[in-house]
């Protein structure tokens, strides 16, 4: 649920945590993302960093430029404008993905775990848009969840995490999909691989000229299944620095989406 009044908490002398509620609902998440967008736009003196999550916003501030109490007031002002939220800006980003085989060694087992065929598992994961609720942990690392109740493919989380996951691996843990944007340990089932990773620290590809990180919280993702020929083609394009992601600017109509979910 969304609290009537958010909780404001200390994170040492440089961080404020605004907790808006205690669940991972899309409305809760949209509210946090929108508060973060407005906070960033308002360029308040002393605000250094912010991390929107499913139900909270972490803000780093310079205590010599703004106090905890004044920052809290600013956030309260911003929040009063987003109480009745109908829609938020939301891009649609297409991510080419190859499922299964050596590219996603846990995919066949995941299909079996969900009692569906491999073809059906691909459909479940790729046919509808998925929601980027949080980008964080390590650079450009998104937490992605389905927007439709009937589209959920479940991934089994490893009992003991792997010490290494190759860059570009797509992991599924529960209904949450993530991209391994840097090689890290991991525990999500490895279901596929993306030849174009939406994090480019060297900023070599055209989409990364302004920022090394492509995805933002509030984006929607369309997974596009590809075969080995397409994979090789995209890899070549990445090497030649020609590859471009298919990105559409858009609006996520939250209230309409909620009506759909309720079957209205």
């Amino acid at each position, binding site marked *: 649920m969304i609290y009537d009044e958010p909780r404001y*908490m*200390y*994170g*040492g*002398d*440089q*961080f404020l*945590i605004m*907790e808006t509620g*205690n*669940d*991972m609902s899309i409305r809760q998440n949209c509210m946090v993302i929108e508060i*973060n967008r407005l906070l960033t736009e308002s360029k308040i003196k002393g605000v*250094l*960093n*912010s*991390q*929107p*999550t*499913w*139900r*909270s*916003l*972490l803000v*780093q501030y310079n*205590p*010599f430029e703004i*106090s*905890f109490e004044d920052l809290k007031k600013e956030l309260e002002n911003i929040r009063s404008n987003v109480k009745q939220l109908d829609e938020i800006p939301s891009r649609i980003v297409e991510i080419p993905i190859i499922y299964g085989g050596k590219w996603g060694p846990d995919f066949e087992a995941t299909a079996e775990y969900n009692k569906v065929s491999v073809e059906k598992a691909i459909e479940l994961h790729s046919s509808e848009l998925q929601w980027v609720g*949080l*980008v*964080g*942990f*390590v*650079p*450009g*690392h998104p*937490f992605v969840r389905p927007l439709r109740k009937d589209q959920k493919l479940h991934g089994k989380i490893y009992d003991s995490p792997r010490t290494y996951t190759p860059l570009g691996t797509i992991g599924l843990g*529960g209904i949450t999909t993530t991209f391994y*944007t*840097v090689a*890290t340990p991991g525990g999500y089932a490895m279901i596929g691989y993306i030849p174009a990773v939406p994090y480019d*620290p*060297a900023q070599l590809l055209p989409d990364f000229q302004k*920022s*090394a*990180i492509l*995805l*933002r*919280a509030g984006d929607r993702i369309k997974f596009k299944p590809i075969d080995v020929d397409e994979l090789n083609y995209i890899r070549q394009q990445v090497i030649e620095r020609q590859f471009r992601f298919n990105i559409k600017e858009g609006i996520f109509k939250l209230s309409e989406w909620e009506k759909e979910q309720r079957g209205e």
Partner: protein
Amino acid sequence: MSEVIEILKKGLQTSVQGNYRYGYFGQGIPPSGPMDEYSHHIGNVLVGNKPDAASLEITMVGDRIKFLSDTVFAITGANFSAKLNKQPIKCWRTYRVKAGDILDLGFSTNGCRGYLSIAGGFNVPVVMGSTSTYAPGLVGGHKGRYLIEGDILESGESAVPLEQLEGLAVADEAIYKPESERTLYITLGPQADLYKDESVKEFFDIEWEVSPILNRTGVRLTGTQLYFKDRIKDPDEGKDLSNIIDDGIPVGGMQTPSGKEIICMAKDVVTAGGFAKIGTVVTYSMNTVGQLRPGDKVKFKEISLEEAKEKLMERRAKYSKEYITKYE
């Protein structure tokens, strides 16, 4: 701009650290920068730079370095058993060197990290607004990584003629002695309310020991099992009572997976994660965190935001020329 040093033999973990990287936290990029801000900043002031200029952060075991051009350097932070052309030298002082001189940084005899500052600072590209290295994300510093044999770094233009930087030292009262600080000041939370009251009490009462697993992302401390109150778990959280819905993690945030240990997150913090945090170390004490060595023992003490600010202000006032003296 000229080539100033070559790494002849790499140390345990040496990286370029300068100013903090702000504005990208919400996409998974931490602030990075020096683990011991105080020693880093005063080292720069000592060699005539602005406090957050780029210098080298060395960890426990230092590198062997060859100077490629004339410069002035200083070592601050932990006490390193350094030798210049095989002659022992002192930390917290400036030394003038010429091309061909060899500096062996040795190893630290008290804290964990030292800083090698040079006149003009190291000249590395500014990535996302910062010169600091964030090695796990391949960002910043020298090629986005820790230094290795054969690396050659350039220096920036010194604002002060080298002669004027010779024979300088940090005044005794401004020398930071990492071993003298064994209390870490914290604020409780963001999730202290999830722990049993007796565990919060014990957390403050006991001494915690630094475990051998420490790096720029986090420092682990062991002491006692912390217990959580029972609560109704959200189906989207992990199963353990120490799991919460993924939440932002502040620098200094202390995660406690299964209540078994504390992981105090440091300058290369992972920006979000699903563990409860009992408290957060304040900026003042993050210098101490940056100097902890395996086996060190610390206690935690709660502090108000006002006191934290005062302590920090007092310390930061020392990055000033007033505390630079001449030595014989």
